[in-house]
């Protein structure tokens, strides 16, 4: 059985960008359907785990122009500057929206308290009204509630979108699976907004959740959208690998700075001194991650594949003052549960995939290269972040893009006629999705996913080089040729079949991983988050974007030069 839903706008993904887009569409009195892989607000959307950063220029002397300049400098001049300006000028309004919905930010003397994060000219980041608390909880409190309050939004919980319906030029909706019943849902929409987030789950160790498998990237690519910036993946330098009770927590990074921690490798060497004789253990995020990745690759990693972070050098009465201060901190309590005392034991930390810069090519109206398809948030790249992301810029971009994308999608939905369903294509998508379900034997999806994650974690971390990338690509090709046709779902139940969802994710992961690896192989320089050991320098001729398209079922790579309407890179001034 197949359920057909006809709507004006379809939003895929229920994180901050998706929710903001759905709200905006609903405000424009256009019917909207929000399809989410889990239950909205009770899923693994990255925004609920957000830390403290939310950048917006509110008060002079700070200005949007300054914010744009900081963003471009952090992005190593690879940003699409027009886009950065178009999105960032909306961010002061996004704060008003959040406050209107009930989010509370710290205020003092009638002004919002703004703190300085690395890379900002003026203090610009909002903070929670409880000192030291992360803002993720604040968003989870207010955003899902807005979805429930807007009756115009039809929410499809637990609906996994398999593929977009597209003729190569126009997108007219999507085909999904209702995980709860195992039935297909065909959603016909005049405009479709992608808000599926990143692909951090392509790595073994990530601060995000394991369901972010790059589904939006995969389906947009297969539908024929142009993708860009796929080689840039941000790693958080110091997330906890051990003890288990704090696995993946990013608090050690704060501890490192507060307590001046020291890194050790497996042979007890203070290896950071070797890489960075001046900064030592306090190098930049990228430098730190890169050194740890190198140590792990050369076989000097810690027991769980990272580095040791020790505070043992501190005198006991000094560290006790800190510990007394942090008595109620959940991280410290979890350490206590595990029986680890940081006065004696070292933590194990490692760089964890944190954010991806790559996604669909978008313009300042959040339109992708396909008509009827919009992309917002992490999946809508447009090179807004360039080669590196300014800390605290992710969520303002999501909110601003959600607003703009929602408005534009609603506007175009009002102007277009309802699309006709392309039945043959829908049939083909459904049939393909059912193939692993019908296969009697083969390889189970989680094995394939494990292989792919290991591959990405080996070859696509900060320390990349040509040989490894080519080896990785060969391995990916083998998975595509040998494992994909053997993929099978061993559980044949229809209701809530997790394995089927995993099987459908595999194809998205494959496409995304291949795009990412090929783009990394193509960019022969080191810039921001893309670090090649065989090309360790920034190269001027690579002030270009790597654009990925699809022609006759194959990936096609082109480059496009970056333009500088606002901020010019220092070297081009001289010439």
């Amino acid at each position, binding site marked *: 059985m197949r359920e057909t839903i006809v709507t004006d706008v379809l939003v895929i993904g229920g994180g901050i960008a998706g929710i903001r887009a759905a709200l905006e569409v609903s405000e424009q009195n256009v019917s909207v359907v929000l399809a989410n892989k*889990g239950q909205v607000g*009770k899923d*693994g959307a990255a925004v609920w785990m957000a830390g403290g950063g939310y950048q917006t220029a509110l008060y002079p002397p700070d200005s949007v122009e300054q914010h744009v300049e900081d963003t471009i400098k952090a992005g190593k001049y690879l940003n699409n500057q027009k886009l950065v300006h178009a999105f960032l000028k909306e961010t002061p309004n996004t704060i008003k929206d959040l406050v209107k919905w009930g989010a509370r930010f710290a205020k003092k003397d009638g002004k919002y308290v703004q703190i300085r994060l690395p890379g900002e000219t003026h203090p610009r980041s909002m903070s929670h009204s409880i000192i030291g608390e992360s803002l993720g909880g604040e968003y989870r409190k207010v955003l899902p509630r807005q979805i429930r309050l807007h009756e115009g939004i039809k929410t499809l*919980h637990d609906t996994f979108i398999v593929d977009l319906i597209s003729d190569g030029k126009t997108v007219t909706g999507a085909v999904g699976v209702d995980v709860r019943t195992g039935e297909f849902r065909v959603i016909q929409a005049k405009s479709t907004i992608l808000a599926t987030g990143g692909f951090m789950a392509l790595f073994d160790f990530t601060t995000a959740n394991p369901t972010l498998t790059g589904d939006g990237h995969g389906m947009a690519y297969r539908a024929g959208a142009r993708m860009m910036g796929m080689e840039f993946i941000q790693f958080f330098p110091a997330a906890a690998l051990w003890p288990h*009770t704090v696995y993946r927590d990013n608090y050690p990074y704060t501890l490192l700075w507060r307590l001046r921690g020291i890194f050790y490798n497996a042979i007890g060497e203070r290896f950071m001194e070797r890489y960075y004789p001046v900064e030592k253990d306090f190098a930049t995020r990228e430098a730190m991650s890169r050194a740890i990745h190198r140590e792990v690759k050369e076989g000097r990693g810690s027991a769980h594949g990272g580095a040791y972070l020790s505070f043992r050098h501190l005198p006991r009465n000094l560290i006790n003052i800190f510990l007394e201060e942090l008595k109620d901190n959940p991280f410290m309590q979890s350490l206590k549960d595990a029986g680890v005392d940081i006065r004696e034991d070292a933590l194990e930390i490692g760089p964890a995939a944190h954010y991806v810069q790559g996604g669909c090519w978008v313009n300042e109206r959040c339109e992708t290269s396909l008509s009827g398809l919009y992309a917002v948030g992490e999946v809508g790249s447009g090179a807004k972040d360039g080669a590196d992301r300014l800390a605290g810029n992710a969520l303002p971009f999501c909110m601003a893009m959600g607003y703009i994308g929602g408005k534009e999608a609603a506007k175009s939905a009002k102007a277009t006629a309802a699309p006709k369903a392309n039945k043959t294509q829908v049939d083909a998508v459904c049939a393909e999705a059912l193939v692993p379900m019908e296969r009697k034997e083969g390889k189970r999806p989680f094995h394939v996913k494990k292989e792919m994650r290991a591959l990405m974690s080996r070859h696509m971390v900060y320390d990349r080089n040509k040989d490894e990338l080519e080896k990785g690509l060969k391995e990916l090709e083998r998975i595509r040729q040998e494992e994909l046709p053997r993929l099978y779902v061993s559980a044949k*139940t229809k209701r809530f079949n997790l394995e089927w969802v995993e099987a459908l994710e595999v194809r998205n992961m494959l496409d995304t991983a291949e795009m990412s690896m090929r783009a990394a192989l193509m960019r022969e320089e080191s810039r921001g988050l893309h670090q090649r050991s065989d090309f360790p320098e920034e190269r001027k001729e690579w002030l270009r974007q790597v654009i990925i398209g699809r022609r006759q079922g194959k990936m096609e790579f082109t480059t496009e030069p970056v333009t500088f309407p606002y901020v010019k890179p220092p070297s081009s001034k001289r010439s």
Partner: protein
Amino acid sequence: MIKSKDGKAHVRVFRFDPGVDKKPRYESYSVPLQGSVLDALRFIYEEYDPSLSFRFGCSGPTYERCGACSVLVNGQPALSCKRLLEEGMTVDPHPKFELIKDLAVDLDREKKQREKQSTSSVRIFVDPERCTACRDCVLLCPVKVLDIQKVNGRGRAVAADPGSCCGLTCRQCATFCPNSAIRLQTVRKRGK
């Protein structure tokens, strides 16, 4: 953590597919004694029975943000990503919500009738002096334990359904209360 000799733990898991099975059953699995209950469920899914259904979101163990993985462990609600695995645990779906399959529930639809009241692992105290009835805790609680009610002519947060509380595995209400009005206290088991 109770350690068994061979580093294995036995877990009993509630299994019921309303579309196929006539009545619910429990199945016992032997899993490695390490990590959280969610890790054990994941292990069962990978090694024994891929048809096991369960929910997970942010997949903790230190985020505890989404509350999707809330289940009943040994009769007490807990977040499975956070609760450490012990020998001889029984895992049931969270009793407050409509069942979809096995441990997966519809977190938006509450059961009309609750057969049995589960026991909470904590007592919830709300300081009436500090509470400003701002509804933060009501909105944050993944299983809707707290509610704003009128007490002595003044609105304040009340633990309306303490039996559903995931206790110290979640404690989002206490963490995010802007006035630090909520306090959770572990209930001591009798005889132990």
